């Protein structure tokens, strides 16, 4: 899409959705990472 020569990339609405979807999925991955470490910490304290 950033390559020269393409007549049209995604529409603005598509771009917004792509960005939103990517951020949500990235946060999901980060949340799972933090949650598993946090569960380990809580397990140690318990």
């Amino acid at each position, binding site marked *: 899409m950033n*390559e020269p*020569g*393409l007549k049209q990339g995604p529409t603005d609405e598509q771009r917004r*959705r792509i960005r939103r979807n990517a951020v949500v999925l990235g946060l999901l*991955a980060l949340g*799972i*990472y933090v949650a*598993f470490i946090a569960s*380990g910490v809580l*397990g140690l304290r318990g």
Partner: protein
Amino acid sequence: MSATQTHGHAADHHDDHGPAKGITRWLTTTNHKDIGTMYLVFSLVMFLIGGAMALVIRAELFVPGMQLVDPGFFNTMTTVHALIMVFGAVMPATVGLANWMIPLQIGAPDMALPRMNNFSFWLLVAAFSLLILSLFMPGGGPASGWTLYPPLVLQTGDALPLAIFAIHLAGASSIMGAINIIVTIMNLRAPGMTLLKMPLFPWTWLITAYLLIAVMPVFAGAVTMLLTDHFFGTTFFAAAGGGDPVLYQHIFWFFGHPEVYIMILPAFGIVSEIIPTFSRKPLFGYDAMVYATASIAFLSFIVWAHHMFTVGMPLAGEMFFMLSTMLIAVPTGVKVFNWTATMWKGSLTFETPMLFALAFLFLFTIGGFSGLMMAIAPVDFQYHDTYFIVAHFHYVLVPGAVFAIMAAVYYWMPKWTGHMYDVKLANIHFWMSAIFVNVLFFPQHFLGLAGMPRRIPDYSTQFADWNMVSSIGAFGFGLSQLLFVYIIWKCAKGGQKVSAEVWDGARVHGLEWTVPSPAPYHTFDEAPVVK
């Protein structure tokens, strides 16, 4: 998919906008085809490096006694061979295929996040450079097996933080790749390409990408905790400080079992593309195939403890994990049945991709059946940590995932290069691979059932004969893959020109067969319409 029609395909309009020249093209490209090619080449290099490590293992095991390497280095080889093959060869190969084919199959002009696509690839190169460099650290490379179980892994020398950093980078790369695939499929499908019209390869990758996002952070969390146990005095996995080493096994396998499906689901997608093409029939039970893939992905989250029956768990736990594991045979059986039913009364031809797909069908099923045997908890106590396990997962991953990847390369390579591969050599490659893979791995079932433990550099003389046979198979299989490299090189350089459709009647099976061969640098800058 029903009949497809493209209009306004503007590939020819862009002949003056080719790729950049020289090394800059590969360093800075955001083109999905370039990035797909880079992933595939990287995967091939890793396949050869990981394969060389396997040959060190098999050379040492050729006869009883210590011959070539010291036991520490042998353990490093088993560990790094597995890490390279899983994270450096099989996964990047399927990501490379996804990069090349998903935009072509769904009618998108490129991946949705092209810069991130480039970044994910180069992150992977950095990750595996570090992992391979860790072999040269004082104390040697990681040697605790790819599962990195504590407390053993904590005895690793200076290589430990390097290996863990490499795993984090590879994980970040995988997660970014997965995000890219999901947002591409969800947002950039051509008009009319509803989810249930999408070919099976993008479908299996969509589900795989969700699996990746769910479980890669779990593995990253586990290895982060290993790191803090080693360097910062925490005791997550140390019983002396109130931790539990078995906790690591639970976390690892919560990642590790879905990881198996991350490698095999795209293979299912590939085979679901190839069998209909060479049977000249639509895929039997398309909807059932999609639901079966989703079911397998769901079940993969609730079976992890079948890898650790022997650590001791309540009877109810053993029953649960035994039965949930057996349940996976149902959707997998649906798939095998549907592939077979697709061929039923089809007009079959046996081009190289079809040969590999058929070998996949037979040999993956053998791996599936031995998996079913190991799901039986009381029986698993006998098999656990023996060569039977090694035989099982290699049947799933080599004639399973790797054969499907080879099938995909032969199937789509004419589309990538515009040339037909050398058919005679490709068929020789197939038969050598299919014969030697069985010579290599089938005897390992006998060794395991006779009680030979895995991950040992020396063994009792009672295991000598089958080990020698297995090693001969390994060298034959390794040699066959040099032929594969030559075939790819030869096809990339030239050969018989192919049409857009490449395979007789392929046009009805997907949009990729409607674009010229080789696929132009830019495709679908005007969206095709799918009916």
